């Protein structure tokens, strides 16, 4: 299109007029752009802008309805991922597909067409991991690896195919800052060797640091291209959203009584590869937001369920405003004012096949008085659902729509709004803006700040450190089931947080090898 003149032979991949429609929605509408050899090309857009569909078409997972692609001057239309890989296109997904009970080399062998002997493969893995500065032991069980290390398994799996184009979907969402810098060094090295990288991320600062070009999608259409190094993060966010961005405001806070506390809590892991909580103590004051950072899988879900009442403990170990509640279930805690919003939207915070009205009843029955002696007041429930939809700008045809029909960001707004509108005295929220676009994320954060300003104690568990820096008063790191002592957020910078999170030997190893 208008961005630059491209000679067919010069570009690695040229995409012309790619279109894909799903029932009721056009995911990609005439998208055209090209990727040069050895460039890091960012793909930006809100949730539902069509980024995933676009890369799935490039990787052969989805068939375009119209349009064409040219790879290295040859027409390219992969029927399946295997064809894409054979043509030199590899992809690292946001969610890993690894078997925890197998070791690294076995996992990699499983994805190969003709795997070599295990010993040769292990040697090659060592070689590649050294060349690219990605420390990894081929004999280690994947179940014992951190999220960052698991991602390395996926990356090395791709690198063994010598790709010409590497697609990465939200690669840094699960990484500590130190792990991010290791990843970036690897990507720089790959770029130096002429490999192109198509990079999807919501983290605009990263894109400014790493990428040469950015293509911006909105509602399935390409709306802009830019050089990220010459733009501010805010300008790019506004290009994505198509309107000016609202930045949450935090008011200063006066110390108050403790609202929610946990005392020396140990919880053994419930499942294999689950995380046990070890010696967790925390206290949150009224009106305070405690941020708990850390990479997913370090005890976040376990901590959230101990607070929500899905996992029970001795009564004295969890207290709400001085009342022991450790042995009370979720609804008894709700009655006392402690609410929770779990991370997993579909299947945990909301039932996928139930309507938004029914999902409003799911956690709102007790506090909103939606039932009397077990009989459900559907009229009142519908009003409550409508209120959530209206106040949190949930884009949905109606309150009767099934939860799974909503986009991730919209459902997240509904789930968060459902808890906030019940006016809790304490709220625990796990990954409040996970997978949510910039403007919706800002709205959710603002709502949390407003709730705290009204006197609620809030625990925000998040992987997004910028988010925690923005809204929390104090910060603690959760690592391998242990919670660090909380620190005033104003005394912190990203570097210090990274060290608090790292803790593990794995960070030190990176610094030595890097």
């Amino acid at each position: 299109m208008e961005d630059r003149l491209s000679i067919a032979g010069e570009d690695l991949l040229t995409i012309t007029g790619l279109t894909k429609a799903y029932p009721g929605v056009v995911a990609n509408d005439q998208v055209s752009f090209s990727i040069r050899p050895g460039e890091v090309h960012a793909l930006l857009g809100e949730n539902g802008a069509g980024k995933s569909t676009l890369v799935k078409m490039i990787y052969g997972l989805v068939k375009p309805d119209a349009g064409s692609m040219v790879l290295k001057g040859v027409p390219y239309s992969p029927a399946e991922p295997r064809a894409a890989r054979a043509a030199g296109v590899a992809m690292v997904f946001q969610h890993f597909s690894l078997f925890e009970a197998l070791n690294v080399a076995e996992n990699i062998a499983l994805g190969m067409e003709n795997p070599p002997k295990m010993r040769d493969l292990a040697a090659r893995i060592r070689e590649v991991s050294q060349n690219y500065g990605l420390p990894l032991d081929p004999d280690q069980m994947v179940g014992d690896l951190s999220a960052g290390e698991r991602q390395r398994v996926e990356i090395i799996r791709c690198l063994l195919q010598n790709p010409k184009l590497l697609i990465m979907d939200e690669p840094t969402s699960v990484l500590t800052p130190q792990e991010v810098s290791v990843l970036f060094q690897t990507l720089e090295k790959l770029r130096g060797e002429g490999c192109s990288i198509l990079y999807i991320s919501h983290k605009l600062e990263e894109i400014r640091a790493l990428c040469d070009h950015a293509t911006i999608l909105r509602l399935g259409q390409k709306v802009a291209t830019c050089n990220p190094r010459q733009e501010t993060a805010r300008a790019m966010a506004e290009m994505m959203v198509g309107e000016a961005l609202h930045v949450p405001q935090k008011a200063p806070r006066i110390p108050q009584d403790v609202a929610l506390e946990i005392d020396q809590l140990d919880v053994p892991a419930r499942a294999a590869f689950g995380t046990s909580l070890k010696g967790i103590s925390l206290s949150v004051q009224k009106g305070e937001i405690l941020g708990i950072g850390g990479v997913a899988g370090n005890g976040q879900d376990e901590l959230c369920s101990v607070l929500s009442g899905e996992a029970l403990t001795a009564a004295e170990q969890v207290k709400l405003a001085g009342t022991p509640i450790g042995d009370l279930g979720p609804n008894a805690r709700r009655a006392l004012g402690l609410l929770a919003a779990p991370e997993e939207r579909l299947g945990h915070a909301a039932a996928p096949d139930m309507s938004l009205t029914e999902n409003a009843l799911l956690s709102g029955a007790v506090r909103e008085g939606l039932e009397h002696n077990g009989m459900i007041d559907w009229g009142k429930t519908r009003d409550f659902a409508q209120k959530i939809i209206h106040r949190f700008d949930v884009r949905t045809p109606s309150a009767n729509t099934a939860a799974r029909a909503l986009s991730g960001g919209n459902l997240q707004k509904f789930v968060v709004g459902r808890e906030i509108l019940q006016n809790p005295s304490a709220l625990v929220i796990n990954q409040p803006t996970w997978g949510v676009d910039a403007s919706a994320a800002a709205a959710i954060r603002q709502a949390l700040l407003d709730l705290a300003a009204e006197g609620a104690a809030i625990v925000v568990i998040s992987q997004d450190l910028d988010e925690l820096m923005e809204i929390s008063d104090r910060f603690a790191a959760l690592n391998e089931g242990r919670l660090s002592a909380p620190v005033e957020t104003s005394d912190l910078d990203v570097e210090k947080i990274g060290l608090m999170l790292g803790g593990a030997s794995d960070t030190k190893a990176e610094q030595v090898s890097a």
Partner: protein
Amino acid sequence: MITLEKRPEPSKLWTAITPILAVVATMIAGGIMFAVLGKDPLVAIRTIFWDPLFNEQFAGFSRPQLLVKAAPLILIATGLAMGFRAGVWNIGAEGQYIMGAICGAAVGLAFYPTESFLIFPLMIAAGALGGFLWAMIPGVLKVKFHTNEILVSLLLVYVAEFILASMALGALRNPEGNGFPGSRNLKEYPSAFNAELLPNTGLHWGVVAAIIAVIFAYVLFSKHMMGFHIRLAGQAPKAARFGGVEPARLILFCLGTSGALAGLAGLFEVSGPAGQISIDFNVGYGFTAIIVAFLGRLNPFGILLAGLLMALTYIGGELASFMLGVPTAAIQAFQGMLLFFLLAVDVLTNYRIKFGTKGGGSI
């Protein structure tokens, strides 16, 4: 090319019309099968679906049979649907049906020959209790030891069958029966007899209980928190726990209720149409009810219709094999087709068919 495409939401329209579509498809495929067997397909279909209700010659006998056969199916299937919606798979309703019949009949026979209006209510309570307790065995084992309720409840059917045989030959045997197996006939014991409420309609207390159960289940599912929790637990177990559902309580409620309803069905059968505890007292209502529950979409009113339809194919099938000489196996195949087609067209609730998506993309 024809492709299936997942709908963003389950279609309400298709949920409603798939059973009708399945019945029509069964009639067509069944008709072909009857034609291959050398029978006139139209006559066969008419014999199965029409004659039991409207034929001048047989309807007088077969029409009451419809309610008699449908009542236990509906009663059991309504209870099973609660469990199935919650993901609690009680496959052993047949056993609970037998135990309900034994307990209820035993209470009645214990009072023989005393006459009192209290005896029949006591028998009803005993029947429900028998089924309830028999279903509590897989329930408690599942809650305490995480055993699989499918296996335990199914295997207990065979245990119940042996208990039935031992009762018919031993403790409950008719002392005046000249040593023949089987209990006293309750038809000859007015206080314990579940008589027809209106002559020649087949309407007995079991039919009334089935209708009450359907209404009760409808209110439970649509208006009560327990029903909401049942649906929630079946669809999204993690969300159910988040919503405050206690899985153990739910499992015991579902198994207990379905067991009690199956026990009631057994009691009404033994005290009415069957009349006595005999070795071959059970005829598979407990298993057929599983089909009825699914045919009725696990919806109480759907089950009501499905139970009547299933009873109709039984009576009509008997009539067809008697009148036209259609083999019994063909009738069973015909009933099997019904479930098969229902499951097949069920796909359309969640998917839509799209023709010719290949290549021609212009938007």
